[in-house]
């Protein structure tokens, strides 16, 4: 029975259009026990996050979250950054193939576009519980825009980005590659604009030495590509693993070239990070205090082990050793990268706030660096965001039959 449905779905997908999607929905109802278990667990985590978020709003975020007057941005902001960086990266990596015509990258494109939509929606989901008044945002973002605000540009451009990506995916499913490519191009433009504005949200804060400067927008774009490469490699591998299928030669080739993108971008970010530190140490007392936190202080484990080793150096070594051929090594590397990058975003957002603004004034109130720890509410919301990506990935694989439609 299941096999019949699969065959029908594949036939429909090849024929193109929404008939395939309909068949895919039917196919989603046919799954192994493990598949259902994963669906239920991620679905429940997602619902728990909704409950935690609503509860936090009800009792007041001041009580529910770990953030404070001095450290107003917590793990929800960093997780939002994590998701939208991943989304932008997926968009950029997928565009190499189906927007800019590099054939080797084409097999991963459709899944990338799908995941880029789901990761940005996850980002919006998480930040909806961080923003105190989302309803006011909906109204005043439109009728009272502040054009000097990077947050405004970022939000507006990401809205446009989501629209273009959604339309692009729709046309990909309908097998209308020309419109899809045009939309993909618009997605790339708005994605880069939105994402550099997100970097600028931090880079334009001239009272915060750790972030201030042109470094952040540039770093954000480069690190988006790194995230995108890791995410598409991991989820492609996972898709084939869960479906128990063998990859064909074109898909293997696609992962091989994406691995090369990964190697290039990890090297770039390592280079950026090294120079960030080297230049930072000739900065003011506040900046060096923040860098010390990462190098030798309470964030040293996060930095050296999670960011540098797990997020970059080990994956880089595995990618190189794998020669783009050994799928197990590649998949392990990409999973490690995603894990490490999550903490990279966390450290970036949190450590930037831990030096009190009056630190250099030498007053008794601020002789120590500040601290932040995520609350249970915040952690559940973060897990819910991750679960949302897992849930939609699982459903997407079935509904869109492994995202296999050919792109010409």
């Amino acid at each position, binding site marked *: 029975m299941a096999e019949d449905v699969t065959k029908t779905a594949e036939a429909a997908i090849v024929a193109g259009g929404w008939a395939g999607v309909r068949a895919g929905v039917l196919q989603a109802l046919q799954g192994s026990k493990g598949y259902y278990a994963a669906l239920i667990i991620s679905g429940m985590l997602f619902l728990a996050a909704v409950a935690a978020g609503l509860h936090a709003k009800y009792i*007041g*975020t*001041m009580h529910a979250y770990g*953030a404070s*007057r*001095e450290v*107003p*941005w917590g793990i929800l902001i960093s997780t939002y950054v994590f998701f939208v960086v991943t989304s932008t990266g997926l968009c950029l990596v997928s565009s190499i193939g189906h927007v800019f015509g590099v054939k080797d990258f084409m097999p991963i494109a459709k899944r990338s576009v799908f995941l880029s939509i789901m990761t940005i929606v996850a980002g919006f989901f998480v930040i909806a519980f*961080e*923003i*105190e*008044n*989302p309803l*006011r*945002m909906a109204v*005043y*973002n439109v009728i*009272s*825009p*502040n054009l*000097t*605000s*990077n*947050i*405004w540009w970022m*939000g507006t451009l990401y809205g446009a980005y989501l629209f273009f990506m959604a339309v692009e995916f729709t046309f990909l499913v309908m097998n209308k590659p020309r419109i899809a490519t045009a939309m993909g191009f618009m997605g790339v433009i708005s994605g880069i604009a939105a994402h550099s504005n997100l970097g600028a*949200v931090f880079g*334009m*804060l*001239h*009272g*915060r030495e750790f972030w201030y400067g042109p470094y952040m927008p540039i770093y954000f774009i480069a690190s988006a590509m790194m995230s995108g490469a890791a995410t598409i490699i991991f989820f492609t591998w996972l898709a084939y693993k869960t479906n128990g299928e063998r990859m064909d030669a074109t898909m293997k080739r696609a992962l091989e070239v994406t691995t090369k993108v990964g190697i290039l971008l990890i090297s770039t970010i390592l280079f950026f990070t090294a120079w960030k530190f080297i230049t930072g140490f000739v900065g*003011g007392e506040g900046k060096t205090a923040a860098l010390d936190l990462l190098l030798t202080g309470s964030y040293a484990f996060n930095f050296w082990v999670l960011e540098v080793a797990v997020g970059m150096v080990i994956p880089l070594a595995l990618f190189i050793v794998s020669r783009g051929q050994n799928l197990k090594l590649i998949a392990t590397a990409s999973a490690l990268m995603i894990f490490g990058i999550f903490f990279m975003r966390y450290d970036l957002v949190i450590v930037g*706030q831990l030096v*009190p*603004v*009056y630190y*250099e*004034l*030498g*007053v*008794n*109130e*601020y002789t120590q660096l500040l601290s932040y720890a995520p609350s249970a509410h915040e952690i559940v919301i973060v897990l819910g965001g991750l679960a949302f990506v897992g849930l939609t990935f699982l459903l997407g694989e079935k509904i869109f039959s492994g995202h296999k439609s050919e792109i010409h």
Partner: protein
Amino acid sequence: MLLKRIKTEGLKKEDPGIIPDMERRQFLKMGLLITGVFAGGGILSATSIVNRSFASSREFAEKYPYKPHYSMVIHQDRCIDCELCMTACVKTNNVPTYGYRTRILERDDPKAADRKREFIPVLCNQCNTPPCVLGCPTKATYKNASNGIVMMESKKCIGCKTCMAACPYNARYFNEETRAVDKCDFCFNSRLSKGEKLTACAEACPAKVRIFGDLSDTGSEVYQSVHNLEKTVWVLRPEAGAKPNVFYTKG
């Protein structure tokens, strides 16, 4: 080099390498004498705190963009930490217990020859290039076009807290009751707009620490303090580049 020293005066712990106050004043005077009256005007504008920390150009200091241009000069050494200013602020502006619009920081110097501790009142600096206003997505916080006060329009605040992260002076907190970020507005809503001349904190201070007034009025006490060669005047965190309107001095 000398200019640089003056600029950072009061921002660092006492450092024996820095020339003591009196010596610097003498030196400045000597400089004026040596250079002579011809250059006097130029030196005046070069050494006035207004040009260095406050305004982006000389023209700005000569012609203030706001009328009145509200400002506060804080006589740091007069503060005894009685906190009457804080109490008055809380009462006047309905500040909740979990927040504050102004507070008094303290700095110890065990090696000092006179008092071992000094108090530094802080509040919103009503900056001329406020990072909070720059970052706010919905113009919920904005510069009042006539008097330069950094205001809040609570109903527009989405609660993204960018302004809190942006503020170089930790002058903002999220008010659960109004569901908006709250901050000092020099008592504009509670007092100035109703015809009062002083902020609640300035009025409540028994030691005349907080001098409030109009910087564009050459006869005002704040103008006289800021444009006074005899006095060393500084701002907090000039390196943040926000060009604050709250000045600090001693004596």
